[in-house]
Structure formats: C-alpha cells, structure tokens
C-alpha cells in the first residue's frame, strides 16, 4: 500500500471504462457540463469534500497571513511551552493546545503545530498538484501518441510503461531519494513521483484513444483530409476531457499519500520545512506520550485524501451517468 499508483488503482473499473462522451459539439459539451455540475451539487458528500478541498487550498495560499493572526511562525521555538526535564514534552495538556498555540506545540522545540500544519499544507499540496499536472501532461501526450499512431510508437511507449510499472517503485523512490543530495527535495520528490506515475495515466488514455480512433467521427475527419495533429487535438483530446479530470482528481490523493509515506520513511521533505507526512514521522515516537502531536497532522492528511477520493468518485460517477442517460 501507499504505493504510488494506489490512488489510480482505486477505481480502475470506472476509469478504464469506455470513453464517456460522444462526438463533440459545443452545445453537447456545455449541456454535459451542466448535467455533471448539477449532479455534483445534488450530492452532499461531493459538496462537503469540495468544501474541504477549497478550505485546504485557501489555508495553503493564506498561510503567511494565518500565522500572522496566530502569532507564531512555523520555525519559531517556544521553550516556555515545553518541559526540558520530561524530554521536551509540551507542558499544557492535549499536546500543548492553548489560546497561544491552537493545535499545540511540537515536543523538544515548542514550534507551533498550527503554523506547521498550514505551511505543511502548502508543501504537500504543491508537490501533489505539480506531480499531478506533470504526470497528466506526460501521460496524456504519450498515451494519445501510443493509442493513435499504434505500430512502433505504441510498442516503444508501451514497453517503457511495462518497464516502469514492473519496477519496485517504492523501494526505488526511497533508494533514489536517499542517494540524491538533499538540496531541492520538493523538486526531486515531484520528479520521482512523475517518473513512476505517468504510465498509470498513459495506460488509460492509450486505451481510450484506441477506441476513439475507430469511431465514425474520427474516421470522417480523416476522410475529409484533416491533419493528424488536428485530429488528435480537435477530435480526440476534447473527448478525453472527462477521463482526464477524473484521473487527475484521483491521482492527487495518491501523490499526497505517497509524499507523506516517503517523508514518513525519512526521504521526503527535509525538516524544518514542514510537510504533513514528515510531521507524522516526527510524531511517531511520541504516539504514546503526546498522541495529539500525532493525531493532528494525521487527521488533516486523512481528510484531505478522503475529500479528493470522494470528490473524484462522484465526479466519475456523474460523468458515467451522463453517458448512460444519453
């Protein structure tokens, strides 16, 4: 578990189903869009998770402002909040939660957990979003190339995908990250996530492109002499939009989880830069003496991953339903 593709493998049944949308037309697409949004708005679970995602994104963006309000920056020590004679345990109960420190303090340093959570959201989300964006672009482009052109192009891309998917990726990511210099850890993390992540997207896109390429409207475009590039970008890509959106939504929690797992294993974001996984890793030894310290970042990680998954689920279902209703 916590392997990179987990987020994507969650729903292969739904994601790999047939292409969702029929021939593209502006009117048809906008009505599909309306149907999907209204389906999403009708579901309280989807709305709750969307709400939480928006909240976390806002928190991440407004982090510097929020810590001004709370009064502690994420690196600042507060030795009045911890007891050096008890191994640096927070003095106040519940992990040092007080009017001063809203989510408590970190043992041994007294750093403010609230500030670290909001800054951690920045790091975790930036990494997950960047990885999702890059893997999507790479996966969609290569997947479409393989699916549309077939032949040796498909052979090469498919073999590379097989190869990357056969790789023990978690072992390799850890080994790679521990060997690389610590310098720019977030960038390295994104890179490593991308190298092993794109085949899972490309595989789906390839399959769908293959079946789309056989549809009448593509054949019609071909017959009318449209260039290959035009067919790929004007005919096929628009029809993949739904799938791509679902893939991205489901990839993000996977990356958040993997980033956290890598940080947990000690090869992720380097402290003092906070990330949620790294905060959990730091809290592990303290789980018996300071459970709050463990619980707070765990809860945020859980809720964020859950929200993305629920949202992705509903989105995928809404798109599916739209398809069958037609």
């Amino acid at each position, binding site marked *: 578990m916590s392997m990179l593709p987990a987020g994507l493998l969650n729903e292969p049944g739904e994601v790999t189903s047939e292409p969702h949308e029929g021939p593209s037309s502006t009117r048809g697409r906008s009505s599909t869009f309306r149907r999907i949004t209204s389906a999403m708005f009708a579901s309280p679970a989807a709305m709750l998770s969307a709400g939480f995602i928006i909240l976390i994104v806002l928190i991440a963006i407004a982090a510097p402002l929020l810590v001004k309000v709370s009064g502690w920056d994420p*690196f*600042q*020590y507060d*030795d009045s909040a*911890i*007891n*050096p*004679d*008890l*191994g*640096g*345990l927070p003095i106040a109960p519940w992990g040092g939660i007080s009017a001063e420190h809203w989510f408590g303090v970190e*043992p*041994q*340093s007294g750093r403010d957990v609230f500030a670290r959570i909001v800054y951690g959201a920045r790091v975790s989300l930036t990494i997950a979003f960047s990885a999702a964006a890059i893997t999507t672009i790479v996966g969609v482009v290569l997947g479409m190339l393989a699916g549309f052109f077939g032949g040796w192009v498909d052979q090469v891309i498919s073999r590379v995908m097989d190869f990357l998917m056969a790789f023990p990726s978690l072992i390799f990511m850890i080994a790679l990250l*521990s*060997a690389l*210099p*610590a310098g720019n850890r977030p960038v390295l993390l994104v890179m490593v996530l991308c190298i092993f992540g794109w085949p899972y997207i490309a595989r789906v896109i390839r399959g769908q492109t293959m079946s789309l390429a056989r549809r009448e409207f593509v054949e019609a475009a071909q017959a009318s002499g449209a260039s290959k590039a035009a067919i790929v970008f004007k005919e096929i890509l628009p029809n993949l939009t739904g799938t791509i959106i679902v893939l991205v939504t489901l990839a993000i929690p996977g990356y958040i989880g993997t980033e956290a797992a890598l940080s947990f294993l*000690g*090869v992720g974001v*380097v*402290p*003092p830069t906070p990330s949620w996984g790294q905060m959990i890793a730091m809290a*592990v*030894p*303290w789980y*018996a*003496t*300071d459970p709050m310290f463990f619980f707070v970042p765990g809860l945020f990680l859980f809720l964020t991953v859950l929200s993305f998954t629920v949202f992705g689920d509903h989105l995928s279902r809404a798109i599916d339903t739209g398809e069958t209703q037609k």
Partner: protein
Amino acid sequence: MKSKKLVLGLALASALLLTACGGGSNTPTPGSGSSAAAEGAAGGTVRIIGPEYSHLDPAMGFDGGVTNFYRLVYRTLTTNSTEEGKSGEMRPDLATDLGTPSDGGKTWTFTLKDGIAFEDGTPITSAEVKFGVSRVFDPEVGIGSPWAKQLLDDGSGYQGPYIDKDKDFKAIETPDAKTVVFHLNKPFADFSSVAGQNTFAPFPVGTGAAGAFDAKPIASGPYKVDSYTRGGGMKLSRNEKWDAKTDTVRPAKPDNFEFLFGLDGATIDERMLAGQSGDQNAFQSGSIQPANVSRLQDPSVKDRAVRIDPICTTYMTMNTTKKPLDDLKVRQAINFAVDKVSVQTAGGGSQLAKFANTIMPPTMLGWVDYDAYPTPDNKGDAAKAKAMLAEAGFPDGIELTLDTRSGKNQGYAESVQQSLALAGVKVNLNVIDPATFYEVIGTTSQQHDLAVTGWCPDWASGQTFLPPILDGRNIMPKGNSNHAQLNDPVINKRMDEIAAMTDVAAANKAWGELDQQIMETAAPMVPLVYENNVQLRGSNIDPGVVGFNAGVDLVTLSLIDPGK
C-alpha cells in the same frame, strides 16, 4: 576513535558514578541512585534487547556498543576496570600487570597469566596473542581500532598473517610462551591503555580468515557464542574453559546471555516499560527515546531506569579556512550566541543530555571544568554576539551554511539556526543523509562553513580526543576528522609536547588544560551537549556497574533471582 556513527549512542558511567566523576549532572534524575537494588546472584539467563553489533570480529568492530559486548567473549592483555567509578582506568587481564616499558617507552613487555585458555581448551600463549594482534595488518580485517597498526607499523609493508603467511612480523616478539614484547615505532607512554583495545584479543594461530569470526567467534572470555542469526538474535553460554581465578575484572554471574536484535527503538522502549513475561530478566543495551522520558515518572518504571554519564561530546565545528569564520572574533561571537539550553532540549532534555562548554566530556581523566564563553543561564547572549560581529566588521550580520545529518543532529542544527538568527547570523541548513554525511564533511572540498558532529574517545585520555579532531597535521583531503580545519602551530606544538610526556597522569592533566587553551585562543567549535543514555532494566536485573562503553558494563549484569 570509535566509529563516529555511533557517537549518539555512546555513553559511560552510571548514576552511581555521578558524584565520583564530578561534573556529571546537575538535574534531578529519576534513575539516579536507584541501581542500589538487590545484589545479583550467579546463574540464569540475561536477555539483552538492543541494536545489532557491527562485527563479532574484534579487529573489525570499533564502537562503544560492540566493545562492551566483546568483554563477554574476548579477553585482552589489559582491560577497563569494573570497579564503580573507575571504569576509565586499566587493569591487567590476560597479562599479569599493565606492561613494562623500556627503551624510553618504545618497547613494552607483557607476561601472560597461567591457566588461560580458549573455549576449545587450547592454552593461550604468547604466539596466540601475537597472532591476534598481527591480524589488524590485514587490509580486510584491520578496520577496527587503528592503534596497534599505527604504533606497531615497522615499515616492512606487512599485510597480516593471512596474506603474508610465511613472513615473520618482527614488531611483536615472543621470546617464550609467557612473554610478549612489542616494539613500537615511537615512544608511547600510555601503551597500557592501547593493550586493552579490542584488537589485542588472542586467537588460535591460523584461524579467522575470510570473516570467520563474524559468524563464529573463538572465545577467550567468560562466554562463548552458541548461535547467531543476523538481524534476529544471539545466544551465549558459559565458556567452561574460562577460569574465574585468572580474571579479576569480570564478575560474569549469569550462565547465559540471550540477545534480541532488529527491534526498533520505540518497540524496545515499550517492551522495557511494560516489563512483561520474560522481559523482567531483560536489559536495554541502547537508550530510552526522548519521547518516553516523561514515562520515567511512573513509579513502576522510575527505579528501573539507569542513567549513564556521557563520554562523548556533540559539537558544532566552524571551518576556519572559510570567510568570515577565519576571524577568531566571529567564532567567539557564535560561541556566545548559541542557546545551549534549547540545544539540550533538542537532544532529549535534561535527562538525556547536558549542555557542554568544554571540548572533552567530564569523564575524561584530567578534565578541566571551564566556560570560555559564559552567557546568562546558558541561554545565549545575542546582544553580545551582535556587538562582537559588528566589531569584527559585520554590523549587518553574516550568512553561513551548516552541514548536518537527518535525525537527532538535525534537531541541534535547527536549534542553533534559531539562536544564531537572533544574533544576525543567517544559517542555511544542508541536511545530508546519514549514509553520506561523513563522506561530505570529511572531504575538505565539499565541506561548508559549519558542521554538527561529535567525537568519542578510545580510552579516557585526551590523547584519543584532541589530536584527531584538532591537530592541523591531521587535515586530509578525504576522510578528514579535523572538521574545523584548525592548523594552529602553537596548538600543534603543545600536542607534540604532551604526547611525549612519560607520566600518563600528568599528560592527561595537560590535555585537560589544552582543551581550555584551544577554546580560549582558537574557538574552533561550539561544544553543544554531552549526550547520555538512560537504560531500562527488567525488575529482576541487578544492573551492576557502568563501564567505559555504551552504558552498563554487560559483564557486570546479573539476575537478582536467577530462578525466575
């Protein structure tokens, strides 16, 4: 110079030694004085839970933990005392005395005791001692304590008894079965301590090639290895051929030892805290983690904690070849700026660390207590540091890069970063993976301005502490240990003078004074903390005495009721 990688785990001297050693600790300890539990009896099986040992071959292993273990299985010519508070002192072991110097300390003669034998009954004679020591010259074997190799190298290019099978190694002579004569390449007054290094364990002539001892040692000490599973565990039983009458050092009361390896620190803590079935006969060979220190308050745990006094120092070196650290004023300012209380908390708080002001830890013989850069409550003096920086020509502060490795040392680095920021010193952390840390900071071209690292002595003399880390002639482009790259002719010369002293006690005192002189005149580092272990014992364990290694001397452990 035990492996630096275990700097953090090393410690010395128990709660019982606190007063004996003087400068131990000034904070109340839950464990201190508690080891006055019931006296242990002979027999039974003691369980040791902790990290796995690096090598069972004594020529290869060289850290506090494994050296402690070797005392169960191997004997050496001399060895550290098991008397309370005197573990830094040497006692005769296989030899009848601490050796007789001649030729101005260049030749050392030892006479072996009668009735000493290996586990298979083979008597231990001078030939076996010579064979054991000569093994360190094998390039694949001699990766442990370097002292024998450094002092006995006769320039003949000898490569040990496996490669140079037919060559006689002339630096060690065996005129008869009971006499061993060592010809050193320079006078060395403290050779009695060298003869207690792991590499002075005897072996039957011709054994131990191809890493054989790492799987199955040949015991000369009170226990022999019955079985050993890498990553799992090891069982020792009494070596019947070991005669207690020949060994005045090792109490060796239990009949068996059972080691459990491969458990992680948190699990060991939980098991030891719970003390459930079987674990009442267990002893923790590592240390309790900072997160569990607060649980020592529990009355059922309180008197099962044994606090160890430190033998290592964790410090931050300042690279004296880099600007602006080449300026003594800047280095002194940084010494004033560091909040040592905060650093101590990062090390686990008052129970697991004490802030350091000297280069050497208090347990060194001849240690001098001083504080060259006192600040209020040891919490740093940012204003004074700022003023000194301005005086040195940096009124707008400076920016430095600090090399550290992930783990505990990173906590120190982050704490230093915070307190230096207050004095206008911006510190950028370069966090290096522990696997590559020493490669980076030991390569002078890759090393940055500051580095958090540490040192442990090989025996309780400044000889094994100051020269390796501060002698300018020890600076090497690769594998360097003088991370401050300090090359001060006055200090170098003084080191030579002390090394040439024939009175070991006077030399030790001189090392203690040099420690202070270095900090006052050169300030190449900021001493941060002396870390100490707190070890948990099962309720049926008599923790015995703390040795000169990673805590309680294993060979002094015993069961209060061996029937349990």
